[in-house]
């Protein structure tokens, strides 16, 4: 059975995004570029993938609220991908 636990928000920026670490039950797990974790100050970032995750199950509305906050902070998102667990197991990859 699928349960919703987070979202990868992809941003239109080539700089490391200064995003909120905690939003509701979500934590910012990492910012990655092309599948590799980036540290603050990193350069050569392409289309950063920002993972917000909650160990407890969340709703579509929680994700919409999160994305609205990111938008309000001045970031343009170009793609969002929901993160599911299937039978309690993460159903998505991790970056290097």
């Amino acid at each position: 059975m699928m349960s919703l636990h987070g979202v990868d928000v992809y941003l239109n920026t080539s700089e490391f995004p200064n995003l909120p670490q905690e939003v509701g039950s979500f934590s910012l797990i990492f910012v990655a570029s092309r599948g590799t974790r980036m540290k603050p100050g990193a350069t050569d970032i392409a289309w950063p993938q920002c993972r917000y995750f909650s160990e407890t199950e969340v709703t579509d509305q929680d994700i919409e609220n999160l994305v609205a906050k990111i938008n309000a902070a001045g970031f343009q998102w170009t793609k969002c991908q929901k993160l599911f667990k299937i039978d309690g197991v993460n159903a998505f990859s991790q970056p290097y």
Partner: protein
Amino acid sequence: MAHKVCLIRGDGTGPELVSAVETVFRAANVAIDWVEVEAGLACVEAGKPIVPDETIEKIREVGIGLKAPMTTPIGKGSVSPNVTLRKRLDLYACVRPVFSLPGVETPFKNLDIVIFRENTEDLYAQIEYMATETVAHSVKVISESGCEKIIRAAFEYARKNGRKKVVGVHKANIMKVADGLFLRTFKRISEEYPDIESWDNIVDNQCMQLVTKWSIYDVLVTLNLYGDIVSDLAAGMMGGLGVAPGANFGTNCAVFEAVHGSAPKYTGMNKVNPTALLLSGTLMLDHLGETKARADIEGALKATLMKGVKTYDLGGSATTSGFAEAICSELKG
């Protein structure tokens, strides 16, 4: 003064191969100050990452490394040490030269091609999701900056090494957006190199032409997945992964490696062919400016093969260390 080089001895047969390279380098009077760094299964067994942060930092600091084959553990959550090194060090250019070796019989005479494979993006970004319970989704990321770096590297290499032709390899007839970006970038950059003939090929056609018209090709440049497949195809044309060298270049860092696996079933048997790692080592010597040592070692290797001294994969009976000693004899002769 000795060149400082980070050394990863690897897993399985890796340490035996490294010993063979060290033996030949000593005989060629190449002064290397090896800085041993840890990575691979021993790290995993000790509860560390397969490539510890200290190893990444040391290679970044020294700027150059030689890596023997490592084993990717099978199981949930395991990561490839090779991909980890490429991604963490941003080694964006995988360079795979393939060329005919005397005494290594193949149907492909006078083979001499260098393949540039983008190393850090494409499907190898490994961004994957289960979109539903029954549908998987893998994200192919292609950036203009990633394309530009690998394409420029290929043209610069061609110009520096007297190569006359660069071919861009893609599948833009199907993936019109992602591969289309690569193709547009290839055409734009090729205009900066009017002294080098260039054209593009669709990857399936390129594979067919490699085995039918290999002699017309010089330098190929392509995306990560196609590069992975095409370079191993070309390695087979050269005589197999046991003889095919590889190098990975970033902006400030380079790691040289044999592209074959660690062959764990042959561990300790002194059996595996050290040619691929040795030729990766001679690419490294060239990078270090040791062009004479490179020529000497490659000349001795070819002389050894010409005399019929070969390891089992090439139909011979020489051991790993025996093959290295035979090369040393040629160097001293």
